[in-house]
């Protein structure tokens, strides 16, 4: 997994609440068997008309936002389907940091598996930072310090320490879990003993 350390970008502000993963990446693009190449279809129905032509006034179709690495958006972002294609599409487009007042649980977890940092801020701060999108000015995000710097201001954000470590170091959590193979093995033996019906073999 790619690391997330810090980032500087003009943010894109998409003030829609309850953006679901169907909206982030519609089902016709879930037929892929790869993780890459989904960026061009990110927010497909907002970005393209029925003939497949770019909708020119949609923010991500405009400069400089088409090169943005930060997405500021409405609450409950990523609700609905568990499809990891949603963070894959964001990542492939270039978005590696999201700022919202809340996220759906599955989407939130999926971000961390892909080197994307989802930041939670309160609504007032989001409105304040979104001004930098309107003014097309850069903001900075620093994960080690847990800070967003905008203009002469800065704000701290909270993040789970273990998730932070995984992002900063780009850790493979399967490898980490496999280090506990002995514990898993003894747990499996306990299950075979106490709940023998689990292993149906």
């Amino acid at each position: 997994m790619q690391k997330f350390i810090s980032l500087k970008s003009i943010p894109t502000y998409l003030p829609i609440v309850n953006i679901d993963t169907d909206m982030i990446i519609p089902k016709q693009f879930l037929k892929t068997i790869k993780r890459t190449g989904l960026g061009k279809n990110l927010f497909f129905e907002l970005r393209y008309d029925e003939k497949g032509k770019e909708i020119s006034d949609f923010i991500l179709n405009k400069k400089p936002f088409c090169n943005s690495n930060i997405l500021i958006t409405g609450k409950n972002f990523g609700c609905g389907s568990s499809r990891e294609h949603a963070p894959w599409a964001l990542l492939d487009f270039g978005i590696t940091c999201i700022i919202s007042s809340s996220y759906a649980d599955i989407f939130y977890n999926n971000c961390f598996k892909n080197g994307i940092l989802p930041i939670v801020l309160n609504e007032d701060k989001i409105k304040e930072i979104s001004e930098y999108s309107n003014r097309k000015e850069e903001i900075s995000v620093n994960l080690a310090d847990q800070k967003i710097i905008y203009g002469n201001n800065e704000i701290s954000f909270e993040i789970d320490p273990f998730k932070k470590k995984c992002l900063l170091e780009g850790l493979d959590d399967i490898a980490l879990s496999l280090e506990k193979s002995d514990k898993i093995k003894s747990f499996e033996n306990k299950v075979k003993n106490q709940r023998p019906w689990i292993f149906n073999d």
Partner: protein
Amino acid sequence: MPHTLYDKIWNDHLVHEQDDGTALLFVDRHLIHEVTSPQAFEGLRSSNRKVRQPSLTLAVADHNVPTTDRSKGISDQESKIQVETLEANCKEFGIKLFGMNDKRQGIVHVTGPEQGFTQPGTVIVCGDSHTATHGAFGSLAFGIGTSEVEHVLATQTLVQKKAKNFRINVNGKLPLGVTSKDVILQIIGKIGTAGGTGCVIEYAGDLIRSLSVEQRMTICNMTIEGGARAGLIEPDEKIFNYLKGRPMSPKGETWDKAVEVWSNLNSDNGSHFDKEVSLTAEEIIPMVTWGTSPQDVITIEGKVPNPNTEKDLDKKSSIERSLKYMGLKPDTLAKDIKIDKVFIGSCTNGRIEDLREAAKILKNKKKASHVHAMVVPGSGLVKQQAEQEGLDKIFIKSGFEWREPGCSMCLAMNADKLKPEERCASTSNRNFEGRQGRGGRTHLVSPGMAAAAAIAGNLDDVRKYQN
């Protein structure tokens, strides 16, 4: 200290816990399908990893499969590749698969319980958010992403943090024509689509206990639409009777021992819930959604909201956006909403009791001439059972299409989809923009309500049609 059912299942599955509360949780049951698994297998191959416990994973193709004649295979090339990739991966890693032409094939959340793969007290995961369905059996069941699918395949565990406990009590008796779908829509309307975020919901109360196993599944299924990853219900005799004799259920002495263990799966008196909400069953009326979020519910006697009466600006713009997408004017009566299509099926309402409920309303009646209506059974076994009961004939006689099992128009990944601006009364679980096809307009309803809408040609009150 008293523990909730969720606490107990959590504690029973802890392989390891870090000081910060990050836990490694053992996974008893893993379901996979063709859409969210290929990249996970690819990850295993590229890291030279094996599937740790192949017998604890069960595979079925459901999202992409055609619901029309399957004898010629899948015509869509990408769908075909995905289904074939699942077959190849299962063969390579030794995982049991119900292929497209197996009569046990069906929607993963219908197949799991049907086979007895789903069991009380287990941790069940699947790369699909409607995994919450299995919580009806008193299991901790939740949807995961593809990276987590890979993690489960490689380690038979998941890295998790404990969620909060949220109890929803429903007491009383449901009025005639009101179903568990109406209960869960009412709940989502009440708590909102983010109401359960960070929580596991336990459904309790005498109404919940009175529900059949399949009705409970409908409620747990849509837990994710209320923002919670998992919803569960204390298992009881109904659950044990349902599971007894299923192909993957425990047998003989092991069965007796399992039931003994399962009988202790409950929330202790006095256990702590971080959140609690209560509803009275008698007050629940048949529900419909009007907008593009499952929380946008009104009763069939109600009307579409008017954004001008909403003071919160975010909510106001959200209502305006939804109304525009749905092609509805403020204050329209629910019963005045004309529909083009009816879809009966999905992991929410594609089981035999759902089909019986719809068939009961449709018996000796015809669908409105302008309506295109289809039934997609949740599995091959549901289809077979329905045909034995003659339900297929009732549907066909009233003008419905009788299809092969799969996810179908719930998410419109296969050929079954709405055209732009087409309006559908659907027994599925999501009314998001574009969910059933670009520009398509979805109204979520119960199977009985879908049948009533098919007959009337507009959303209508199922209570009028009780035979």
